[in-house]
């Protein structure tokens, strides 16, 4: 017993020991921390070498997206290469809308009144500006007006170029500018010049913008399909009304030929695009003087001269595009309003500046843009309303003729996996370096146009001004908040956040223990002590994934890093002495910091109080990241502060670098890194000097002197090992950087405290529209259209119905989700807006919560009067009833035939049985002698029976024939009825066609 007990005990012990081991062995291997590959080689590949380099496998992908379209097309046709594209730029033609003459008229006059006073067509009057103080009106004119005998008219300005009066500027006339939209053959340019690597845009918003989903119905009104004849006709009308004459195929004004100077950029596709536009102008009757110029001379003329000097009339503009942004008012603010100074005149005080001609509800495009851009609204609805109205006004004013969203084209070898095809940033998305890999390899080779240029600078004050520094650096540090690659919404990257807001007008109380850096006193203070007691919103960032994790050098990330760095950046913005040294930094960052009220570290959370409101809370969180500084350890921010402000050996900004002839500090350049390490090791960057930045108002110091010393040692070792002092906390460590060799190496950071493994979002699956089932639309009746749309996440369907000729939107709305698909319900009040016997365009726009960029489909729908639909339905119903009756008769007859046939067979069988029985009995009673007689009788009887059978069968056949004839008769009658019904339907359709034809002819005649 005792032995058994011992054995059992031993067994239990063995099991107890073995279990955890077995559990460990059977547990899944813990996911690898850090990125998918161990090493990234990142080096320069000039554009002409990209094709052979990627084909030969010298690089796995090329991260500079501006390769020529021809090369991209060739590479796309190569099986081992794929081309990733994303909208990355915008191309438009900006027109010079300046007047050629400005006069002052007595009195406060309207446009029409001013035209009347001057004796000209109102179309010549571009803008009137009341001058109440002078009791006069300033009038801008698109054509010179002879002022002789015009009493009281004062000429303020007359355009003169090369001692010659400029008589007329056609692009000054708004209506003419608008019509030019129709004279721009975007389809052909897309196909022939951009080789498909672009998206047509009719205005600054388009299907490449997430915000487009809210503006689609507006955009649908302004689809400027190439219609040269329309443009020619209307422009001719406008020119004639304005007093111009077409002489020898060229427009003249008061005997002077109208010349158009086109500035066409030569570096890219804009050269051919500009030539195509110039050609259209020539066809319209304008004398075009093209001037094909590179960046410098073109910029100098267009943005460097006053528009009323008329050194240019049109210019082929190109713009870069930022990240995908769900709610983006930037396009309107930039291209349709005067906020950033991008309207002709460029906000230069000494230049003539464009003034809006149109208003909606008394506000112009810039007013609406300001409301949307600066969030001067109270709700999302107001914001959208402002955006829509501003956009529509800008389209109508057409200072820019929009062309394309150009696509960046990134070639990637097919075996590269783990990518995130960001709908805005494409391959440049920072998610990519976290996920990219090639099966079976531990490294990856990345080509870029440059790794280093003279303006490629890695410093966290005013560095990172180009893609060559930004792209690799983003692989070395983690963001607090970043944009979702498919929706453009701000999402927590290495944090989670919670937002509380008091709304656009409300205020939240800032807690008493919230703190702020007081640059005047040079210390952290309680925010309440400097009057910071209220804020619009509060964002709580959970910083657990930063705090306690490691820097690449192995040091732990602490509050000293987060708060100390913030204090240094705030000091640079608000410390007046520092602001004098680095004016550029102070001006720009003060603007951002001014909206941050206070911060409050609580546990691992950082509360940020901001005076910022947005209807989307995630945007408030995004804004609050100004107070989160996580990319460098505190001592490195201090080092930048030292060499920038104390020893003044390096400039932190480009402007200062140039003004003072100082090198622009870059932490990856050996000379700068060496300088910093030297200052640390020789004791010039001292703990005591920087202690105040890490000492909170309660007197607590967040980093000890020993810790500082330890960090300095580690920094020195890091420099010895890598030649740089770039230490961060992201998935890769920068272990080699050579500006001369144009090469850098990133090695995976696989510390157990690093929170992430490889990250890859893959490719977005936009909503696909499989089918749209649209019946005839009854005008005055209700109907439903079924949309079969598929995609990931919640799907949203919007629709609009527009006149295909005028593009006027008649109805718009959203579809409802139903078991049969998405149902577009068109109630009576909507269908009554439609004309009967008319074809309309139904535009269906689909997007999802997971992929914001929309999918569009246009189908044609036919309207008919509701009564006709009822008639057709009535005929159909009658035919159905008739068919039903016929079916019933048929079934009845067949049943009866079967019954008759069954009855007769039964009777016959019975008679045969009786006769057989009788015969058998008779046979039994007769002798052999009578057998022959009986046999004869039998034969006779057999014959009789045979006759009986034949006669019975004949009777049955006769009945069957009769029944068949009856059925045929009934069938014939039914067919006749059916035929009549078909004829009725055909006649109705023919009627309908005739009516449509008549309506079409009438419409064409009207047109």
């Amino acid at each position, binding site marked *: 017993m005792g032995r058994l007990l011992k054995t059992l005990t031993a067994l239990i012990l063995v099991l107890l020991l073995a279990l955890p081991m077995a559990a460990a062995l059977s547990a899944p291997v813990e996911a690898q921390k850090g990125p998918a590959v161990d090493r990234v080689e990142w080096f*320069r590949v000039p554009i002409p070498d990209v094709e052979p380099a990627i084909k030969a496998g010298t690089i796995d992908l090329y991260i500079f997206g501006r390769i020529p379209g021809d090369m991209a097309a060739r590479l796309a046709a190569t099986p081992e290469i794929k081309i990733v594209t994303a909208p990355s730029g915008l191309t438009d033609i900006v027109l010079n809308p300046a007047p050629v003459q400005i006069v002052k008229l007595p009195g406060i006059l309207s446009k029409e009144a001013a035209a009347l006073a001057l004796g000209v067509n109102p179309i010549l009057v571009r803008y009137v500006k009341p001058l109440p103080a002078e009791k006069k009106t300033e009038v801008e004119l698109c054509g010179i007006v002879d002022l002789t005998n015009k009493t009281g008219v004062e000429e303020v300005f007359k355009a003169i170029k090369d001692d010659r009066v400029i008589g007329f500027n056609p692009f000054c006339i708004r209506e003419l500018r608008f019509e030019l939209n129709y004279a721009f053959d975007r389809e052909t340019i897309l196909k022939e010049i951009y080789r498909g690597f672009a998206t047509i845009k009719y205005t600054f918003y388009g299907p490449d913008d997430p915000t487009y989903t809210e503006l689609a119905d507006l955009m649908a009104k302004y689809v400027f399909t190439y219609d040269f004849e329309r443009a020619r006709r209307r422009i001719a009308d406008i020119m004639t009304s304005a007093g111009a004459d077409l002489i020898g195929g060229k427009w003249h004004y008061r005997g002077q030929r109208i010349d158009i100077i086109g500035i066409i950029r030569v570096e890219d596709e804009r050269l051919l695009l500009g030539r195509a536009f110039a050609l259209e102008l020539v066809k319209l009757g304008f004398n075009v003087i093209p001037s094909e110029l590179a960046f410098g001379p073109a910029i100098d003329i267009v943005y460097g001269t006053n528009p009323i000097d008329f050194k240019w009339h049109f210019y082929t503009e190109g713009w870069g595009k930022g990240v995908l942004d769900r709610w983006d008012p930037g396009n309107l603010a930039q291209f349709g309003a005067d906020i*950033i100074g991008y309207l002709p005149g460029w906000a230069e005080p000494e230049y003539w500046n464009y003034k809006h001609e149109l208003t909606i509800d008394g506000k112009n495009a810039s007013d609406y843009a300001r409301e949307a851009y600066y969030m001067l609204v109270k709700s999302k609805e107001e914001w959208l309303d402002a955006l829509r109205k501003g956009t529509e006004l800008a389209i109508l004013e057409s200072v820019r003729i929009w062309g394309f969203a150009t696509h960046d084209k990134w070639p990637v070898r097919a075996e590269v996996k783990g990518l995130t095809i960001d709908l805005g940033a494409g391959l440049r998305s920072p998610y990519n370096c976290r996920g990219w890999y090639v099966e079976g390899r531990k490294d990856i080779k990345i080509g870029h146009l440059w790794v280093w240029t003279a303006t490629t600078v890695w410093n966290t004050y005013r560095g990172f001004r180009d893609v060559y520094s930004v792209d690799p650096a983003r692989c070395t540090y983690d963001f607090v908040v970043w944009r979702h690659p498919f929706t453009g919404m701000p999402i927590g990257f290495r944090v989670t956040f919670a937002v509380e807001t008091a709304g656009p007008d409300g205020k939240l109380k800032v807690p008493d223990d919230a703190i702020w850096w007081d640059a005047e006193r040079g210390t952290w203070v309680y925010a309440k002590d400097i009057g910071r007691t209220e804020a619009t919103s509060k964002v709580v960032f959970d910083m657990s994934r930063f705090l306690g994790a490691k820097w690449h050098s192995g040091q732990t990330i602490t509050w000293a890093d987060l708060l100390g760095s913030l204090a240094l950046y705030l000091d640079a913005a608000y410390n007046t002495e520092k602001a004098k040294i680095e004016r550029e930094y102070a001006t720009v960052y003060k603007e951002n910091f001014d*909206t941050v009220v206070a911060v409050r570290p609580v546990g691992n959370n950082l509360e940020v109080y901001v005076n910022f409101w947005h209807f989307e809370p995630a945007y408030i969180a995004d804004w609050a990241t100004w107070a989160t500084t996580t990319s460098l350890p505190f001592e490195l921010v201090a080092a930048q502060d030292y060499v920038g402000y104390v020893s003044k050996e390096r400039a932190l900004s480009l402007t200062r670098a140039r003004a003072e002839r100082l090198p622009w500090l870059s932490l990856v350049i050996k000379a700068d890194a060496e300088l910093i390490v030297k200052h640390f090791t020789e004791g010039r960057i001292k703990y005591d000097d920087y202690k105040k930045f890490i000492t909170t108002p309660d007197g607590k110091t967040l980093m000890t002197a020993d810790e500082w010393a330890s960090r300095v040692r580690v920094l020195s070792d890091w420099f010895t090992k890598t030649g740089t002092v770039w230490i961060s906390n992201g998935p890769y460590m920068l272990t080699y950087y050579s500006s001369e060799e*144009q090469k850098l190496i990133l090695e995976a950071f696989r510390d157990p405290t690093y929170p992430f493994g490889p990250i890859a979002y893959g490719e977005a699956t936009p909503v696909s529209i499989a089918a749209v089932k649209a019946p005839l639309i009854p005008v005055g009746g209700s109907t439903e259209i079924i949309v079969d749309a598929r995609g990931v996440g919640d799907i949203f369907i919007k629709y609009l119905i527009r006149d295909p000729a005028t593009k006027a939107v008649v109805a718009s709305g959203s579809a409802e989700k139903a078991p049969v698909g998405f149902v577009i319900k068109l109630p009576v009040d909507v269908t009554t807006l439609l004309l009967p016997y008319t074809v309309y365009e139904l535009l269906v726009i689909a997007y999802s919560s997971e992929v914001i960029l929309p999918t569009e489909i246009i189908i044609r729908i036919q309207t008919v009067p509701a009564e006709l639909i009822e008639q057709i339905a009535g005929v159909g119903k009658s035919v159905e009833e008739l068919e039903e009756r016929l079916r019933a008769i048929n079934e009845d007859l067949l049943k009866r035939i079967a019954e008759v046939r069954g009855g007769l067979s039964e009777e016959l069988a019975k008679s045969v049985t009786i006769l057989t029985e009788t015969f058998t009995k008779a046979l039994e009673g007769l002798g052999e002698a009578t057998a022959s007689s009986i046999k004869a009788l039998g034969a006779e009887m057999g014959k009789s029976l045979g006759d009986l059978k034949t006669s019975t069968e004949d009777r049955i056949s006769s009945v069957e024939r009769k029944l068949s004839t009856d059925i045929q008769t009934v069938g014939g009658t039914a067919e006749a009825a059916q035929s009549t019904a078909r004829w009725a339907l055909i006649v109705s359709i023919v009627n309908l066609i005739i009516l449509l034809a008549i309506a079409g002819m009438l419409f064409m005649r009207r047109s």
Partner: protein
Amino acid sequence: MPLDRRSLRVIAFRGLTLTIILFIILVLTAVIMGATGYDTVILNAVIHEQVRAFREELSKPGSPYTPEEREKMVREYREQLLSVYGLDKPWYLRTMSLIPKVLVLDLHVTHDEVAGVLGLRRPLGAGDAIAVALPRTILMITLAYVLSAIIAVPLGPYIAYKRGSVLDKSVITYAAITNAFPVWWIAMLSVFLFGFYLGIAPSSYRPIVAHISRFSDSLLSLNFSGALTALRDVLYFSYIPILVVTFAVLGGWLYSARAVAIRVVSEDYVMAARAKGLSEGTVVRKYIIRVIAGPILTFVILGLAGSIGGFIITETVFDWPGMGLLYYVSISAGDSPMVLALVYVTTLVYLVARFILEVLYVILDPRVKL
């Protein structure tokens, strides 16, 4: 051989003439850059772009600045930039003041692209920029010229002497082919062939810059093993460019040397020498080589001097930032000080070479007169 007074006077006069030419060239370059407004246009464009970017940054949502405040800051920023780029002064003050400074190369690169193309950053002296670019060009172009000269100088006269032979015909064909194809085209082919497809040479030559620096740093710090390693890398990265340029220019050199020699070979006095029964060696040495030495020397010296200007496109193809690229970027960026410095250096080298030739002429042939 001591020079007489007359020869010295001749040489001095030639030196003075060349100095005046140098000065005129510098003035003309400065005038072209300044008076035509070429650099102003480019600088203005740069300022416009920087101001626009600045204004955009100041106009972000949430900005606390009023439009007036913003415009004031933009104005100040623009003024700062105008001063930085020197556009607050008239062109003649800006560019003509550069001439005396250029003589001692006391000028600075004013554009980032110019510094960047060399792998350097500003502030950067024009002399430093040239000091970095020049060895790279010498390594590729001048060395190739030297190799060509070494081959062509003896071989040219030899094939002239063997006129009509297979070798002669081959050289003529080779010269015609290499003249027909531009160097940069052969360079492109070689990068694709040897770099990308055969893999026996680099596909990117940019690292040569780092290896040259490493080599010179190692030498300066007397680290000879490091210098040797760096030299090996330099050779690996430079053998294809040197061979390509040599291959491309050798044909022309051979043909020229042959052409110079062929005229002499068929001269009457050469035939007379042969008729006198002199040995072929004596005829070649005394009657041919001595006569053609002058023209060939001129050709070689001026060729070598001219080589330091670099090959713009070939340097671009090899991504080899030497004097050619430096020239191109300086002109396209409108970097007047750098353009002046480059013009000064290349002209100076050329004129010094000319002067040396002039001296040699005077020494070799005292009959040379002004």
